[in-house]
């Protein structure tokens, strides 16, 4: 039984009189102690999916199961247990902490409310433990500071510490390191991975950076989203080494890398168009077909492909990938 399972979840927003489908029929099961990365460009629905998984946003349709139970049918106490088990760490270190509350106030509120600490003194002791767990030292000093007195990296650690106060089983990390300086990113990632290994916390790590996803979720899985749909979902090594969806392949070919020889000799996949379709005016069939270099006329523009397993542990939603098992070779060959 999966820890948390998203079943056919869809989220629609009203934009004036138009209805925008931000997330369209996404299925995802997060296992115990698993790391999953969701990758995609802005507006692909990855953050919305994360918020729904964290219980901060209601889905328009579909089901969310927590330890096998539908969360909309949980009793009060069960729901509270789910709430505590699923936490979120946000992107922006400058808006993720309340500017008028000290770190101690921020950390102690859930400890006291959920009776993880019996009094203020106990809460303080526990808060110090948690801050040390996320490598924030000297914890004693940091507790009495306000967020603006900390650096971006320190704030992100406080955000993680706040999530850890309630002993979560699962943390949604939404671009949790993208606004932190490059030189300290790795230590944040390593700290999160340690929490996964030592405390067994599962992660849904949302990022636009495939290289980061590869590093963080090498032992786990990566899902790629495009215009609200999951287009590819696979064990990381398989996806990174042999992407099956032309969109994933295009992304990987487009990303500049921190190695001049490598990045200058990468094969590029040239798309048919640079325009990202508007969510209010999505093309029929496969949403990617107007940009796709290997689309099949009469099929890709008519029928929407569904996510299906092409290789062991590797799902992809693409007609072309389905037709030629073995995937990406045709795309790169055809468009050099």
């Amino acid at each position: 039984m999966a820890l948390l399972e998203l079943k056919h979840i869809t989220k629609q927003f009203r934009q004036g009189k138009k209805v925008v489908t931000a997330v369209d029929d996404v299925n995802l099961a997060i296992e115990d102690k698993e790391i999953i990365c969701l990758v995609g460009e802005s507006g692909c629905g990855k953050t919305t999916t994360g918020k729904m998984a964290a219980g901060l946003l209601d889905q328009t349709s579909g089901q969310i199961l927590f330890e096998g139970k539908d969360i909309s049918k949980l009793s009060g106490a069960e729901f509270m247990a789910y709430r505590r088990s699923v936490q979120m760490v946000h992107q922006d270190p400058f808006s993720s902490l309340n500017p008028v509350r000290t770190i101690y106030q921020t950390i102690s509120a859930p400890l006291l409310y959920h009776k993880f600490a019996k009094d203020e003194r106990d809460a303080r002791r526990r808060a110090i433990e948690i801050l040390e767990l996320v490598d924030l030292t000297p914890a004693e000093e940091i507790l009495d500071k306000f967020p603006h007195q900390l650096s971006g990296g320190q704030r992100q650690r406080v955000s993680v510490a706040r999530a850890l106060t309630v002993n979560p089983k699962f943390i949604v990390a939404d671009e949790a390191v993208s606004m932190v300086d490059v030189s300290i990113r790795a230590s944040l990632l390593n700290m999160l991975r340690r929490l996964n290994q030592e405390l067994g916390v599962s992660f849904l790590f949302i990022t636009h950076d495939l290289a980061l996803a590869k590093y963080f979720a090498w032992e786990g899985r990566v899902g790629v989203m495009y215009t609200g749909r999951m287009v590819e979902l696979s064990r990381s090594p398989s996806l990174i080494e042999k992407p099956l969806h032309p969109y994933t392949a295009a992304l990987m070919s487009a990303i500049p890398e921190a190695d001049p020889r490598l990045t200058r000799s990468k094969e590029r996949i040239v798309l048919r168009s640079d325009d990202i379709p508007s969510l209010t005016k999505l093309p029929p069939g496969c949403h990617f077909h107007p940009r796709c270099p290997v689309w099949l006329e009469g099929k890709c523009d008519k029928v929407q492909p569904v996510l299906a397993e092409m290789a062991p542990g590797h799902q992809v939603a693409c007609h072309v990938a389905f037709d030629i098992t073995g995937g990406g070779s045709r795309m790169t060959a055809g468009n050099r």
Partner: protein
Amino acid sequence: MTYLRDLGSGLLGSLRVMSRNKVGFAGLIITFVIVLTSLLSPYFVHMEMTANLDAIYQGPSAQNWLGTDYQGRDIFKQILLGGREVIYVAFLAGILSCGIGVAFGALAAILGGWFDTIATAAAELVITIPQYPLLLVLAGFIRLNSPIGLAFIIASISWGGLMLAIRAQVFSLKERDYVQAARALGLPTSHLLLKEIIPNMMSYILTNLVMRMTNAIYGQVGLIFLGVVPMAQNNWGVMYSLANRQGAIFGVNSAWYIMAPIFAIALLQFGMINMNRSLEELFNPRLRRGE
């Protein structure tokens, strides 16, 4: 005991923080002194009941610091006594109006639905109508005789702007990451509202409170001047109004009679407006550390 000591050091700390802004701290002291004397003087100062026709419109002297009025009574004593009702109405109207504005605004943003629709529409209507004429007409239709009634009427027509502003702020604040995080931690709505959201609006609310209090003073004194509200008690507004009617404006010595209440009101409002800067300092940790 420790609690008392903590409270004491907390108060001292707050004062130290507030004294960082010089102008603001001056405002705080001015306000404090005026409010305190206005509240206490009725117990110590007594007004002569009879007119003293020999000493009409005297200039300032050692005996009468601010001179005498058209009946020869001491103006300084009237100033000491005349603040209480003005402050009372201003404070009551300010608190009520802000209370309604903040409560409705926050509830509308959090509850949404029909409550939001109705409260927003009502607020939008209230702000379209020019406030002061509305106050005049209402006061003209509803015969007012108590300061409490006056405060209620002032509050009932002045909450709209604040309500809309608070609603918009709560709408945006409740989507902030830290509020979402607190929600995910399972903290109750009361915590979200009182500990996470409202403290971030405190300096805005305080600015509005002061603004509403000065508006209430304006409304009250204006109504007295126009004769819509009865002139019974000692009140700076009544002094100003009587001075106008008695033509005190046209003499050199008699001008003290009209200048005194104007000066008292101006000083109080000046104090309140500037006091805000110090209070803001208290509620914004970023300002607090001088960074």
